[in-house]
Every structure is written in structure tokens, then in C-alpha cells.
């Protein structure tokens, strides 16, 4: 066998592999294996050709897919509109309150997703405070409601995924070198110009990551639509859940999952190209 020196270099060559091994193993067990099982399920059609599930998934659920992406897009845009200014304030203006504000952003995670969404049911009740307030300012008619409407579902999605928008944007803003902003101002840039030409472009990776972290889970979510929506607001996640649990049409449910994944993957690739982020390429 080779001497100790050779052994040492072999060890250093092996080190990267050893470091990624747990991650790879995890992905194999919890990502690749389920995907294979899901693929098998999607084509295990008992009473027809193997593509039967896909045919029905593509043929009958266009409305649900379209609705899911619309809601997810809506939630992402609202989250961006709410999250960017907040992240900006935390990164640049919060001073000693920075950690407190960050803590508040993360605080909702201390209770589960499901409980928080149930809480919204109570808040948005027909006899609840939100409806009363909106009726007082005449934004909502006398017979109007919030619960079981599109507003409630998109609102719920926004609420649940907002921290995933704020945190990546905050991180990308935080690491911007302040001297670049000062340099822009020294070169007679207005504050708005400095933001537009310096801060905004440098924060785009955060916006990119944040919008993906919001959009992807929102598109596949089923809890918000189920708890806060009427039957006319059901999203594709609800359909998949129902096909798995109620109808137990496994091939259709698995096919729907694959179609959802495919559409999201294509969408993400297109988005990555448009925003041109090298980090993800």
C-alpha cells in the first residue's frame, strides 16, 4: 500500500465527497425515491392505457391549474409589494430595532401553519371584526363577506408565505456595500436614482429567491383554498389531495402532481433566464 503521504492526499481528495454524501443520501431517500414511486403510481392505471391519468390531468383540470397560478402570482406580487419596503427598512433604517423586527417577521413560525390559517377563519367570519370594519368604511356591502372568497384565499397565501419573501430580500439588501450608495450620491445621484441604479439591481437576487420561495409553495398549497375558499376557489393542491384521499384515484393524483411540477419547473427556468441570475445558473 502507499505511504502515509499518499493516504493523506487521498483523504483530502475524498473529503468533498464525504461532505456531500449525507446530502446526496438524503436526496436519494427523500426526493428521488418518492419521485420514482410517484411516477410508477401515475402510470399504474388499472382500467386503461398508462397515459390515462395524464390525459385526464391535462384535459379536465385546466381551470384549477390556471386558478392556482393566478392566485400564487397574486400572492407573490402582494408579498413583494409588502415585503420589499419592509426588508429595506429593516436592512437600512431599523438601527437598534433590526433584530427585533427580524424576530417579528419570523415569529409566526412559532405556531403551525394550520393553526394560523384556522385563526384567519375566525378573523374573517361574517360576524367578525374584519367584515365589520370593512362594512363601516363601505368597502364591503351589507351582505358582503370575506371568508370563502378569492380575497381570503389570496390573502391567506400572502400571509403564510410573506416571511419567505422578506428574508431573502433582507439578506441581499444587507450585504450591499453602503459605500456604493455614497458613491452614487457623490456623483450627484438623487436618492431615488441611487436606489434605482444601485440598490435595486443589487437586491434582485433576493427578489428572485423570495418570489420563487413564495410562488412555488403557494401554487401547490391546498390548506388556504380549503379553509378560506369556497368550492369555486379550490386550487390544484386541493384537487390532488382530494384525488389521493377521497376518490383514491392514485394515477390521476400522481399525474396531476407531475403536471404541476413540470409547469413550475418550466416557469422557473423562464423566470431565471429573464432575471439573468448567475447564482442559480
Amino acid at each position, binding site marked *: 500500500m502507499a505511504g502515509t503521504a499518499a493516504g493523506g492526499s487521498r483523504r483530502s481528495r475524498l473529503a468533498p465527497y464525504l461532505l456531500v454524501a449525507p446530502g446526496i443520501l438524503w436526496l436519494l431517500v427523500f426526493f428521488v425515491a418518492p419521485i420514482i414511486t410517484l411516477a410508477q403510481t401515475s402510470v*399504474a392505471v*388499472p382500467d386503461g392505457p398508462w397515459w390515462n391519468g395524464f390525459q385526464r390531468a391535462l384535459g379536465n383540470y385546466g381551470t384549477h391549474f390556471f386558478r392556482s397560478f393566478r392566485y400564487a402570482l397574486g400572492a407573490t406580487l402582494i408579498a413583494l409589494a409588502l415585503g420589499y419596503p419592509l426588508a429595506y427598512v429593516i436592512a437600512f433604517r431599523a438601527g437598534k430595532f433590526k433584530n427585533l423586527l427580524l424576530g417579528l417577521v419570523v415569529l409566526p413560525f412559532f405556531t403551525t401553519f394550520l393553526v394560523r390559517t384556522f385563526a384567519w377563519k375566525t378573523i374573517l*367570519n*361574517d360576524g367578525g371584526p374584519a367584515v365589520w370594519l370593512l362594512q363601516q368604511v363601505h368597502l364591503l356591502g351589507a351582505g358582503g363577506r370575506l371568508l370563502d372568497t378569492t380575497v381570503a384565499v389570496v390573502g391567506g397565501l400572502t400571509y403564510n408565505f410573506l416571511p419567505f419573501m422578506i428574508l431573502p430580500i433582507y439578506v441581499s439588501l444587507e450585504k450591499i456595500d453602503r459605500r456604493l450608495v455614497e458613491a452614487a450620491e457623490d456623483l450627484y445621484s438623487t436618492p431615488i436614482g441611487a436606489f434605482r441604479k444601485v440598490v435595486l439591481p443589487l437586491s434582485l437576487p433576493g427578489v428572485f429567491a423570495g418570489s420563487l420561495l413564495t410562488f412555488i409553495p403557494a401554487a401547490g398549497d391546498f390548506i388556504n383554498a380549503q379553509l378560506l375558499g*369556497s*368550492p369555486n376557489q379550490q386550487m390544484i393542491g386541493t384537487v390532488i389531495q382530494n384525488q*389521493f*384521499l*377521497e376518490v*383514491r384515484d392514485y394515477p390521476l393524483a400522481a399525474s396531476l402532481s407531475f403536471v404541476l411540477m413540470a409547469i413550475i419547473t418550466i416557469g422557473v427556468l423562464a423566470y431565471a433566464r429573464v432575471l439573468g441570475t448567475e447564482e442559480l445558473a
Partner: protein
Amino acid sequence: MSRRESDPRDDELHAFLRRAVDRRGFLQRTALGAGGLVLGNSLLAACVGKEGAKAGAADSAAATASSAGKTLRISNWPLYIDKQTVADFEKATGIKTEYTEDINDNAEFFAKIDEPLKRNQSIDRDIVVLTDWMAGRMIQLGYVAPLDDSKFPNKANLVDSVKDVSFDPGRKYTVPWLSGMTGIGYNPKKTGRELTSINDIFDPKFKGQVTMLTEMRDTIGLVMLGLGKDPTTATKADVEAAAAKIKKARQGGQIRKFTGNDYAEDLAAGNIAIAFAWSGDIQGLAADNPDLRWIAPKEGAMLYSDNMMIPKTSDRQDLAMAWINYVYDPKHSAQIVAGAPYLSAAKGTGAELAKIAPELASSQLVNPPDELRARLHVFRALSDAEDTEFNRIFQDAIGA
């Protein structure tokens, strides 16, 4: 114990229950058929189903070995018991009991426990309560441990009419928990008038203020009755007609939600005016909402029965038997019915109930008068293929 063996009120009820159960004419099928079509991956399910049946019998013998000091775990539907019985049972037997109201929908609950039971794994429950048709499926798949009659002396109290049901001849695996009716629950303050008809739920005046159930047999059955069709003889065309009506109402915004037991929250919170509702639930809400009302519509109502059974993988079957025996004492059964006004299958419950809650003992909820009994229907027994087909039609109608 001093109970009158034959209360006339009871006899009447029992004859009636028998009629309901006989109507089912459950299709006898092998375990092979039972898992197959519904699951999609038929071969796997069928194989495991058959093995499961054998393993189930073997397990149950071994299972009773030692459950001393363990907790009895019961899963039941919400609003289906009084507040005292679990505590009384614990005191009387010394068995620590965890009573969970986590069954909201038969199919959904089955989907949760199907995989582990198929693999012969524990589902961390010792008693589950499921509706007749689902109880039949569970037995055929070999998921249920037989009841140990030596630990069940109160089985003598089981009313004659339900001793021999088609899905479980001789009641070897299951006994009824309670039976109930599916009709209309409503809030007269919100409707502004009394309701009498199923079709009131389609009144445009109540747009966005009504809910229906996710249980296919209940919702399709009621809408069929509203259309003048009989669910006892439901055909595919009947189901399609009912589904089309539901779909149209759903798309038009008439129907706010399809629910399990959770319609109760919406009704109590005042979010909805009318719901397809189970007969005893409204009573449970009455403490906070004395206005709420349940009716069996003039066109008819649906009748169903929910059954206790012991999953084959339970390692505490003697504890489960203690519970089953306990609740078949008419005194205890009456106490349960006093809190959850449904129909009991324990003889003598009526007489005991008359002692503790006389006004309830004569209520239509626990003892339907003849006129009401004549209007109750049981959804026809479906083959697995029909069940899948009807469910597809129904799921499309409810937009899921």
C-alpha cells in the same frame, strides 16, 4: 340492574332499524374485489388484503397478552358523545382513555389508516367508528379484529334488528355506535322563515349561505330526494342528475362549502344559514345557539349507522372490548344519547333515557315517529366500481 326488557318504544325502533339495514342488500365480494378498483393499484392491494385477513386473526390472539397500564385510544366523530361517559368509564374500569374526535369524513379517514393497516402496522388507535359501507370495506380488507364475545356480555343488549347485517353477519367484527339521520340544519334567524323542503337549500335568497356534506351518499342522496328520486335504488343517471344540480349551484355561488362535521362551526358562527346536517349535531350546538334547528325535509332524509371496530393491529384489544361492553349497558348508552341525541342500538336505552332526560326520550331525534321513519332512506349498497364511478361524478360536481 333493573331494566325493563321490552319497552314498546324500543321494539318499534328496533323493527325500524332492521328495515333500514335489510335494505342495504350488501354485495358479497371477496377481499380481491374490495381493495382493487378503488385503489387503482389493484394487485398490490388485493394481495395484501388477503394476507391481512389471515394475519388479522393471528394478531388478535396474540394482541391481548398484556395491555395493563396502557391507554385506550378511541377515534370517533365530533359531537358524538356526552361529556361524562369517558370520565365515568375511566373511573369504573381504571383504564386510561384517550377519546379523539378526529373522524370528519369516512373516505378521508380511511385513506389515513389504509396504508399502515395494509402493512400490518399500528395506527395508534384501538377503536374506530365508521359508517356501514366503510365498515364493510374494512372487514373485507381484513383490517378489523374480531370482537371477543367472552369479554362482551352486554352483547345481549344489542337490538335484534341489527344482529345480522349483510356486511357483518352475526356482528363478529362490529357493533353500532349510534345511528343517525341526514337532513337539514338551519338558523331561522338567518333564513327568516321555517324550512320544510330539501330544495330550500337551492333558494337564490340563500346564495352563498349554504353548505353540503363531502359524504357522497348523504349529499347525493338528499339532492336525489329533492328531485323526487329514491336513493334506495340510485342509478348512475340519478346520480348524474343530482350531481349536475349540485354543480350548477356550486358554480353559481349558491353553495359556500362542502364540509364534514365542520359545517357545525360555520352554522354556529353565523356564516351560513342552511346546511345538510346530521340529526344529533344541532343539539350539541344548542347550548350556545338555541335558535338552530334540525329537520327531516318533507321529501325525506337519509339514514345511516356508524360502527365501532377494533383495528387488527391494536395491541390493546381487551381494553377496547371493555369500552364496547361498557357502552352497551343501557344506562351508559342513555347517558351518551342524552349528550348526542342519535339512535342507539342498545336495548333499554329508551327507558333509561326517559329517567334522565324525559323530554329528549320522546324527541324525533332519538326515537323517530312512524311518519318520519317512513321518509328515511338508506343509500343503495354500491360495488367498488360503482363507488369509484359515483365518487368521480360527485367530486367533479363539488369542484374538487
